[in-house]
């Protein structure tokens, strides 16, 4: 038995951070990654595909997105078993109860598993555990019957929820007993819900309980505070396993026979890289190096870049930040390809003009005294005061420079 295990595709993802065009691109990337995943799958001699919940980000997505997703999955020409997750639960307003998903015929390769009845799959039996609510205190796998004596079929569980392997998990987050695979006699428990990949061994030390992670990342890994607008419908925190690790992937799983350890292969499905980088600048040369580096990176249009600059620059070099900005945005007459999105954070980059510079642009009059006053204010504890003072200093540089010229 050879199949693909994916989860948490979150088609129609809620992204509101980057501006209209980039937001659209980020959403579109999830479909592109799905397309990539399907194309790879078609090369792997698979028997079927499993999607362990949260195919859609929400039940209220628009019809066009729902249709595009269906058409893509139909193009696989392999059985695709799907269970609703907590983001697209099987409620009265479920996306699966609306056209076109509600009109899927029996001859289709798409099988939306609306109940917990076991389903015969090529080479074994599938035990689906669809969710019917966003939150629940019930273990979604409770309905899976334990292996009967003499049952020699490969048993695959398909569920969506948090594996109860640690304390302090939210009780209504569809908690799944961590020994489910053992108790129910499952050869493989295909799970979804956690956005980072995660594998768990049974009592015999065999990996049988697996989260594949997302097929397309949706956050800057090291900047959890930087929300993109998306939030989970569960009450779990976005930290740890629940958040993605900055990469997108699906799993190819092969089980030779009942009881055999599953062989798991990762395939990379990532479309956009979410990069959060920090550079320390000491002088203008450092800045030049950085600009050059950024200007020559590969696949810039597939990168979402948060760039943090720290250190101290002379005031004259600070003027070159505009050049850096143009590099990131594809300026310089369009010579450079722009990054898909960037955020330049220079709040920790300090401009310290020398005495000569100061005399040159501020003179010895009131402007110089104003400079001293603003400089003091930038060390104020109040963030807003500090921010305004820094911005005022930049303005002072600009106006003084203009006057000097």
């Amino acid at each position: 038995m050879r199949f693909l295990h994916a989860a948490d595709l979150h088609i129609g993802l809620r992204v509101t951070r980057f501006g209209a065009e980039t937001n659209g691109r980020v959403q579109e990337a999830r479909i592109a990654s799905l397309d990539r995943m399907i194309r790879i799958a078609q090369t792997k001699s698979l028997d079927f595909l499993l999607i362990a919940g949260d195919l859609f980000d929400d039940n209220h997505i628009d019809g066009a997105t729902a249709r595009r997703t269906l058409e893509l999955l139909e193009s696989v020409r392999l059985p695709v078993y799907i269970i609703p997750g907590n983001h697209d639960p099987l409620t009265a307003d479920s996306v699966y109860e609306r056209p076109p998903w509600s009109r899927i015929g029996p001859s289709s390769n798409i099988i939306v598993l609306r109940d917990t009845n076991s389903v015969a799959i090529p080479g074994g039996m599938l035990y689906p555990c669809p969710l019917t609510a966003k939150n629940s205190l019930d273990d979604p796998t409770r309905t899976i019957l334990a292996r009967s004596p003499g049952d020699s079929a490969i048993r695959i569980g398909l569920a969506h929820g948090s594996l109860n392997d640690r304390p302090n998990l939210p009780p209504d987050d569809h908690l799944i007993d961590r020994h489910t695979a053992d108790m129910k006699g499952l050869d493989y428990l295909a799970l979804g819900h956690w956005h980072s990949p995660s594998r768990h061994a049974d009592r015999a030390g065999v990996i049988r309980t697996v989260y594949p992670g997302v097929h397309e990342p949706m956050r800057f890994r090291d900047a959890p505070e930087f929300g993109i607008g998306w939030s989970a419908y569960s009450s779990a925190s976005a930290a740890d396993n629940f958040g993605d690790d900055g990469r997108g992937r699906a799993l190819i799983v092969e089980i030779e026979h009942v009881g055999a350890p599953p062989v798991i292969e990762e395939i990379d499905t990532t479309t956009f890289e979410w990069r959060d980088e920090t550079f320390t600048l000491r002088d203008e040369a450092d800045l030049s190096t950085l600009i050059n580096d950024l200007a020559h990176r590969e696949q810039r249009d597939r990168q979402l870049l948060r760039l943090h600059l720290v250190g101290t620059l002379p005031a004259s070099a600070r003027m070159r930040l505009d050049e850096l900005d143009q590099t990131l945005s594809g300026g310089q007459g369009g010579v450079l390809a722009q990054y898909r999105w960037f955020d330049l954070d220079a709040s920790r980059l300090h401009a310290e003009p020398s005495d000569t510079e100061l005399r040159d642009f501020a003179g010895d009059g009131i402007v110089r005294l104003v400079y001293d006053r603003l400089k003091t204010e930038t060390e104020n504890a109040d963030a807003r005061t500090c921010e305004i003072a820094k911005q005022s200093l930049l303005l002072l540089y600009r106006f003084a420079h203009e006057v000097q010229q």
Partner: protein
Amino acid sequence: MKIRAIEIRNWTCIESLALRDIADGVVVMHGPNQTGKSSLVHALRCCLFDFDHNSSASEILSAIPRRTGETPYVAVEIEIDAQHYRVEKAFAKTKDGFAKLHQQSPAGWNVLAQGKDANAKVREIIGVQKSTSGLFQLMWLEQGEVALPDKLDLQLEKSLEGVLGSMITGRDLAFFAKVTKACERWFTTLMKDSKNSSVSDLQTKLNDALAIRGRIEQDWLAAEKALKEYDEALAQKPDLRRSLDEAEREFDAIAKEREAIAIRRSQHESAAKHHDAEARHVVSAQQQLAEWEKADRKRAKIELELRDAERERDILAERLSVAQAAFAKARETVETEERAAANQQQSRAGIDDRVALLNHVAQAEMLEASLARIREIASRIAEIETKLREFPEVKQAEIDRLRQNREQAITLRAQLQAAEIRIVIEAQQPLAGTITLDADMPIAITLQTDGADQWLIRQKAHLQLGEWANIRIGRVQENLDLEKSARELSELDRIYRDAIRLAGLVADSANAIDHLVARRTDAEAWTKELKKLRDTSNKKAPEGVPAMEAKLCRLHEQAEAVRARRPELREWIANQGEIDELQAKHETAEREAKNRLDEIRESARQADRTVQAEQSAHQKGRDRVIQLAAEFRSATEITARQDHAFLTEAVANASARLAESEKSVRETMLTEEEHSIETRYQAAQNAREQRGRRLRDNEMTLVRLLATLAGTEGLHQNRVQAEQAVNDLQREFDRERLFAESHKHLKTVFEQVRQEQVRRTVGPISDRVMQWTRQLGVADYASLEFGDQLLPGGLNPSNASGMVRFEHESFGTQEQLSILIRLAVGGLLAHGKSMVAILDDPLAHADALKHRRMLDIFTRAAKGEEHGPHPTGPLQLLVLTCHAERFDHLPDAQRIDLAREIKRIV
């Protein structure tokens, strides 16, 4: 610089002046007006700074004394940095003009420079080019100069900056202009938020986006709620279905029971109907029997009453006949008496005609008498009016005027007569000739020998006696008064004659005025009589004589009408006594007849009333008989219709059937439980409908919620887009606001720093001036306001109510503040050096107290302060004044009497 000596010759009005050993500190140079004080200052300015010795400027030419035309000469000895110099200038383009600069050395005065070099060297040593440059701009005041200069001299400004530090640089100003210009993008000139700025625009857009997001979030929450409701409704549905099924089963059982009970109820209702019918039959039979018995009793009773009524009717008919006969007799008597009364009425008309005739005749006679009297009065009125026309009334004033006229004429005439010249000629032989008296025409005269002829003249006379004599007699000088009196007399006589003639009298009559008086008396009497007669006439005939005559005519016609109606009265002579007698007789007869007629009429009316009553009683008797007869017939018919025995049997039969039907009713009656079947049936039906309705409501809710949920497709994307729009706008708004606030902050900090810089820079000036101001007694202000200048423009009040400009202060205060600021600035710049200030006629507008305090300040300023935060140097204050006594409170001051020192050109 200090001035130590001054020597002037031939300068405007000054023939010569030599001042030596001019001291430090305050020097009061006094002298009355026209002494030459201002000329002295002018000479100093020209000599030290403003003009070369060979200048031909108008100021120099005007300094040449007009009377002497001598060359102006000025020499000033000055001390600078402990060096003594002497500047000498003789102002002329000719060889008489020269300039020399001397410097003192232990050996004496050495010439440092001459001519043009001397002019330039002097300016170089003093450090300014003109007397209005540098510190001299502030310290050398012209007479009447009060306000501070609008702008500091550049050299002075630099000097001040050298001492105080820079206030604001050109670069600062350019920077501030740029910041201010940039701020206009978001703020007004007062740095209020502009209504149309990009920040407010973004704020509006952000609010709109937030509103949209809010609406979509509401939709989202509504969808969540709908989903929850759907799940709840779906969970309720099986219970509702089960409950409905139970209700339907219960309803069916009760419905069957109800049908069985309905059959028994029908039987019972039928028995009850039969029982009711039988009961009605019994009642009917009993009623019929009772009615028959009642009718029979009634018939017997009516029969007796009918017989009594018939007897009564006959009696009444007889009584009616008797009454009718009595009424006919009374009616006849009345008619007889009424005819007698009519005859009596004829007699009454004859008496009335006599009375009317008598009245007409009497009134006509009275009217005729009145007419006669009126005609008599009219005749007398005509007579008086004739007299008044003939002899018009003379006014008393006219009479008085004539009397006065005569009195004046007599007086004048007596005066004339007294002054007249009498000419007496006694002729010896007859002579004929003419005589001309005064201005009269010549009169022919004949002189006889018998006696003397005489004339009276006023002025002159001319006597021509033929060939015999031509005599002229006259006054030596004509008496003009006499002529005037003669003319007045003649005028009085003319007026008198005209008045008398106008009154119809002869003027020469001696008693003409008495006649006028008599006539006036008569006229008054006639006028009074005339008024009285007219009043009498009006009273007697107020409507006029024609109306009275018409009335008389009508009276005659009425009398004739009576006579025509009663021929027997044609010859009747009206007699009131006869009429009274006839009237008495007639009234007696009439009264008797009336009494008789009244009695007879009352009897007739009584008889008529008796007839009416008897007729009514008789009619009632007849009606009663008819009614009783009808009732009797009716009662007879009723009793005759049925038989009493038959009716009694019918009652007994009906009672038997009623008993049977009562038994049947009791047998079919429903039990209590059977009676409650309808209530139970209704309750079961309600329960079934209620539960059915609940189930339908549940299904409708599910359908409705499904429809609602079906409409949520795409809500996720809308929510994403709305939030995205809010985020975008929020970021843009935050960025723009930060940008705007940073501009504002930069400008605010700049202004704060500039204020501090100003305060720091001008502090030494401001502190000193405010200290002196308080010493002066002006305590309303806290500080000087400098703006960007080193010279203040006004004062900041202690109550922070805004700057008060100097020109808004009183003239005196303005002058005092101006001097204080000048002394403060001068003191600062004089530190380490020395400076001379010239005040020409200062403090002219200060009151005594402030003047005194200003002198104290002068003393302090002149001494300077070596120590303290802002040390100042000493000043030499040359005060020129025409009021020496006002500066007596300067005990240490040097006093120079210019009136004594200056020799003026006469």
